[in-house]
């Protein structure tokens, strides 16, 4: 076989990596390259250096070390039985690519994953070697995200955290039945076991850092995971429940959702209908509700219909409000912050601004209008100095009044 050039392999191995949704480079410790031998800095907020026409942020060089794989997961483009072109990079080649991209300010760092070659532990060793060369030989201080292989030796998984800012293991599918059917080589207990030990290592290292300043850092940006939406029978309520369990049990920073998308040379076992991209969006919104708006998982599940699915045409917060109209209207001048956060159309920023401003004076509808995008959406749910929605909250056609017109369907034109 003729040797592929770096460019050709980059094409293959970036193409193979694009089904991982995460490209985040936020939330790690602050550091810079002053006094060092290499380049790199992280300042809390990650930077998106480019956006692809799929609207996704390109923050990291996201590639696989190799797309050869001994596993045969049906949803995966790199599965053993797929006919994609195969390629591999040596650890040094990945290091060189990362550095030359970083020096030109194309990226914040590296997100490295891999197909499984030889054995899980061998593959994990190779991934760690890339991170080690970057950190130790080049004193690279940018961001590193390593995808961890749950089947690998736990000691290796623990070593990954010493070099990486973030480690992640994909739970892949929200249900065990889905995993058995679509990822027959993977095991749910094994994945959760590995997430559990990563969590322990992260907590332990944080604790040690409190007492010993020079204790080694371990994955300062924590761990995250990803699940595929729409490839098995799980409902939105199932997925929300699963995500919240994962957040609780493993203190995950993020759960990423990836609407199952057509892949080249897909397995015949996959479902034929792809879920609407909007479904993924609604799940992210529900994730936000739990993380920033103080909703309990069962409350988000209440926003779903009887079939367990979140509505596609309106966001889950509005759906919840329409179900629990008795909780509204909320008095902008008096209600506690938590109640204001439940008002559809009011974000965290707007609520903070309202709370600060009402210390100054009584707020009127026009004041709220200045701080929100759409007053139409907010109005039925609030009381201000000069406004009280006498009948609105009880109107049967309220949903129609506050539903953004046909936006959901328009987005689907491209689906």
């Amino acid at each position, binding site marked *: 076989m003729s040797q592929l050039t770096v460019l050709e392999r980059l094409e293959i191995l970036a193409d193979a990596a694009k089904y991982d949704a995460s490209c985040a480079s936020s939330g790690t410790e602050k550091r*810079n390259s002053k006094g060092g031998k290499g380049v790199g800095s992280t300042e809390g907020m990650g930077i998106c250096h480019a*956006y692809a026409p799929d609207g996704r942020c390109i923050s990291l060089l996201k590639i696989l070390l190799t797309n050869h794989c001994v596993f045969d997961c049906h949803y995966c483009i790199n599965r053993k039985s797929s006919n994609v072109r195969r390629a591999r990079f040596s650890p040094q080649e990945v290091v060189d690519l990362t550095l030359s991209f970083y020096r030109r300010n194309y990226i914040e760092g590296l997100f490295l994953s891999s197909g499984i070659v030889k054995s899980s532990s061998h593959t994990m060793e190779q991934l760690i070697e890339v991170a080690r060369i970057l950190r130790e030989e080049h004193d690279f201080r940018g961001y590193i995200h390593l995808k961890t292989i749950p089947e690998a030796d736990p000691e290796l998984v623990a070593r990954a955290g010493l070099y990486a800012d973030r480690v992640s293991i994909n739970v892949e599918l929200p249900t065990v039945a889905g995993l058995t059917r679509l990822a027959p080589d993977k095991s749910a207990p094994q994945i959760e076991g590995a997430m559990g030990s990563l969590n322990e290592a992260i907590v332990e290292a944080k604790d040690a850092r409190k007492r010993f300043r020079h204790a080694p850092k371990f994955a300062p940006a924590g761990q995250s995971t990803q699940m595929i939406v729409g490839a098995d029978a799980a409902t939105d309520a199932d997925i929300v429940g699963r995500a919240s369990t994962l957040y609780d049990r493993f203190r995950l920073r993020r759960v990423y959702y990836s609407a199952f998308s057509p892949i080249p040379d897909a*397995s015949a076992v*996959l479902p034929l209908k792809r879920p609407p991209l909007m479904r993924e969006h609604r799940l992210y919104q529900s994730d936000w509700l739990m993380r920033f708006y103080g909703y309990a998982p069962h409350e988000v599940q209440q926003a779903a219909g009887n079939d367990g699915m979140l509505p596609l045409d309106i966001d889950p917060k509005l759906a919840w409000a329409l179900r629990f109209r008795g909780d509204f209207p909320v008095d902008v001048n008096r209600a506690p912050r938590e109640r204001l956060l439940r008002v559809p159309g009011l974000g965290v920023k707007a609520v903070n601004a309202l709370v600060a401003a009402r210390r100054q004076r009584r707020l009127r509808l026009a004041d709220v209008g200045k701080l929100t995008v759409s007053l139409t959406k907010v109005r039925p749910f609030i009381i201000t100095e000069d406004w009280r929605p006498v009948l609105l909250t009880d109107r049967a056609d309220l949903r129609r009044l506050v539903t953004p017109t046909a936006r959901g369907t328009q987005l689907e034109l491209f689906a």
Partner: protein
Amino acid sequence: MKHSLNPVPAQVFRISLAAPDDFEGWRDAARHMIRASIAADRIVWESPSDQTVDLFAQGERNLPSAPADTLQPRASRDFLQLAQSVMLHSDIERFSLMYRTLCRLQSRPRLMEDKADPDVRRMEDLARQVRRDIHKMRAFVRFRAVDESGSEHYVAWFEPEHHILRANAGFFVRRFTTMRWSILTPRGTLHWDGDRLQEGPPATRADAPSGDPVEALWRSYYASIFNPARLKVGAMLKEMPRKYWKNLPEAALIPELIAGAQAREAQMVKAGGQDFGDRPQSLNAIGEGILACRRCDIGCNGTRAVMGEGPQSAALMIVGEQPGDVEEEQGRPFVGPAGQLLRAHLESAGIADRRAYVTNAVKHFKFTPQGKRRLHQNPSAREIDVCRWWLDGERALVRPRIVLALGASAARSLLGKTVSVQKARGVPHVLDDGSELWITTHPSYLLRLQDQGRAEEETKFASGLRKVSVRLSEMSQ
């Protein structure tokens, strides 16, 4: 009664700042003017890049003296923080906006908390635009490496919208401390030699290098990481507006990526899982369906599809790999040499084959012609997966309690993964519908073995069938 307005036109003062981002200068002047009780509309502010076009606004350059006994004006911390960002905006009105707000702050110390106040809101807006510009500069500066006497010099051309260059220098110093770099902009330049930061005069695009070989790699990365099945142009434009494109090497690809996306997605869908429609409601419908099935290469090779056979109420389903030469000719499963061997073993295991439903994982015969003979070829994993649709249909209708898979292809068709027959045989596996799967070798494998090896394998085969027979009678009790 209040004092009437001064009939003499109020004196206008002109204040020149040293630079458009000279916050110290603005603050000193503003403090002084507040102490001298000069209203905002009586001050014209200017800087080297903020020149008023108003010819009549000459204004007095000598500032009025402030009474000695007035207090220093006060500014809250959030005002100062916000004002430092607003200062960097390119809007010439920013100086008076800041001054007017500072004046109002003297009588309303908590004014800045009133986020709905028009002046506060305007300041917040300007500050937001500045912060965004700072962020976008960090994101979209693209260095190009120039080889200068053995060491690399990284040079970038960037066009910021606001006066953020100096404020943003620290970020690039912290990130690229060990590199030698320059950032050239129409508003000024920054040069870092690994040790010291120097500022220079405005530059033009022609001063910057025109290319870098690494950009080819970056462009191909950009094109490859894009998923054409999730086109969301609006989301991209929101964060990467067109005005930045001209200085981004990857942006030139965007139009063709968008244009090709739908075709690429359609291609993927076509090559991927295929729409078989609704599940057939009868075995006859499946039999007709497979005759017309052209969803894989075997289906298209012109052979006759072979349907399963046996009672629909069978408790046992036996699944082979695919029809062979004889089966294809006769159109019936397991009528060739392997089928005869299977029948003999079923007999001696006490499973009368009349009671079993026999079928194959793949319904067409895959072969390579050699002279007049047709040599059997293993179906690929993909071909098995495609044909699984039909087998799943048969299983749903027959609903056997035990499925016996003969060989690796049959096992894959039922488990969805490739397993080693030798490792998986001899124990039951539970299938998703609750039925039991037993796996053993394919009888044609036995036919290929000789002497000792054949005898050993046949013993194992027979014992496997006996276990199935025992389970069958256990279940029927």
